[in-house]
């Protein structure tokens, strides 16, 4: 269901825009959110049972399981960016299947950016004062095939990168080619013969998956 962001969700989004130094543009954006129903994967695979047993919660097992499931459904949402106010109002009033472009998700009170959000950051923050890595050509091509990033592929990076942090992956033309997660901090990002950034999402994977699916049919 499409709706306006609540105060809590707005706070999460503003914090994220601020983190990437693009807070100034937030007020001009037309944002709607869509609550999505996600089944807890742990619950589906029977892992939740195991966790609850381990926590000695046998007594309240069923009650806790349904509570956890509901909590996920309430808190998780996709964030969409519309072109104008009219479009935003239409989404809330008419509940279409999709509107605008999706820029990320809020899951368990955390914002998870996607490639469209990375494009916005690169467009509006030309100072590069956010976590990023710039890759040489061969490394860039490998990222498009879903590969993680070796330290030797990194030509340039932001000095303030911390371990386990979301970073934007750029090619030599400073175009967004993916989003990754750092395994090391600061200068350790460039250590050779080690994967230093994990590939979370890249512009190639989605299309290649689609292409392979198509080929299989033939």
């Amino acid at each position: 269901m499409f709706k306006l962001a609540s105060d809590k969700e707005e706070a999460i989004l503003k914090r994220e825009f601020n983190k990437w130094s693009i807070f100034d543009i937030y007020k001009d954006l037309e944002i709607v959110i869509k609550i999505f129903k996600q089944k807890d994967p742990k619950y589906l695979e029977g892992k939740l049972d195991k966790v609850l047993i381990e926590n000695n919660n046998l007594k309240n097992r069923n009650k806790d399981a349904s509570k956890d499931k509901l909590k996920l459904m309430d808190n998780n949402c996709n964030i969409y960016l519309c072109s104008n106010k009219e479009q935003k109002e239409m989404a809330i009033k008419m509940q279409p299947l999709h509107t605008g472009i999706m820029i990320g998700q809020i899951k368990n009170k955390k914002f998870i950016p996607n490639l469209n959000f990375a494009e916005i950051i690169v467009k509006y923050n030309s100072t590069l004062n956010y976590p990023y890595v710039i890759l040489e050509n061969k490394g860039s091509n490998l990222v498009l095939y879903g590969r993680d990033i070796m330290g030797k592929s990194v030509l340039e990076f932001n000095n303030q990168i911390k371990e386990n942090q979301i970073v934007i992956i750029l090619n030599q033309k400073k175009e967004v080619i993916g989003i990754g997660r750092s395994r090391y901090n600061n200068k350790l990002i460039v250590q050779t013969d080690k994967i230093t950034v994990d590939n979370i999402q890249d512009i190639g994977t989605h299309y290649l998956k689609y292409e392979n699916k198509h080929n299989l049919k033939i």
Partner: protein
Amino acid sequence: MISRFLTFIPNTEVLLEYIENLNSKRSNNFEYIRANNLKIKSEELEKALIDKGYRIDKTILNEVFKIEKAIDGNNSNANILPSIGSTLEYLKGYYYIQDLSSCLAVEELGINENNSSMVLDMAASPGGKTTFIAQKMNNNGNIIACEPNIKRIPSLIFNLSRCNVKNTTIFNINGENIDELGIKFDRILLDAPCSCEGIIAKDQTRKKSREYKDIEICSIKQKTLIKSAIKVLKPGGIMVYCTCSFAPEENEMIIDELLKSNQGSDVKIEPIRYGIDGLPEFKNKKFNTDIKNTKRLYPHIHNTNGFFIAKLRKINKCLN
């Protein structure tokens, strides 16, 4: 099915020869691409692709280029070039692989970037024409994209996202029920579901995979869709009806029947710049004289897919 072509396609033998030639030179086949000006200027894209080793030719539209791998001895890298659908530029959404004929249909909608139009794309997936409309509007105004087949919607969403299209709202609704939305539109594009005879040059299975029965089924659907579209078009608004089919049953006959119906007095057929005039008659049946304003595009004459375009304007009776 091909034997039918003799009755209405000019120089049919040239068309058949063209198809054979295209098939034998498969490796050096050309495609059309449309630069996505929401992400890159046409000139910048042209330069980037030439630098990579592709041969680019301009077309009648500024955004559209004819592209092929330059296998002419000057380029030793031609064989290792990625296919045009797997370059970095494609993945970045800098261009869309789209036939010139489809782009001409959108061009006829007469959209400019400064208006705040409400535009309807009645059968939107996979989003080629929708993204071009958004580009023409510079992401302003609103596009309503309808797609009845839920399985085709992911590719539509993917292409809108890849091309940075923000002004589009997608409804999983059948075009026949479009009036249920309660919206009136300034522009409507009806790229009607059709037998796809026009892509026979690229997909030779079309020679045998379609029967006359398919044309009849499509024709019934098209008649319903066009009438539903006219209902939700604002007075003075423009609708472009197009198909990638040669069959008069899916083209001129649909428009002719619309003109003969109750809604016929509400619309007029406007002239189109490119292509050959629509057929004046078929199977001894004469069409409305305004049908000559519709246009046909042929592979062997225009180097495009076989295509039909009709531009209809809803008459503003208050002004008359």
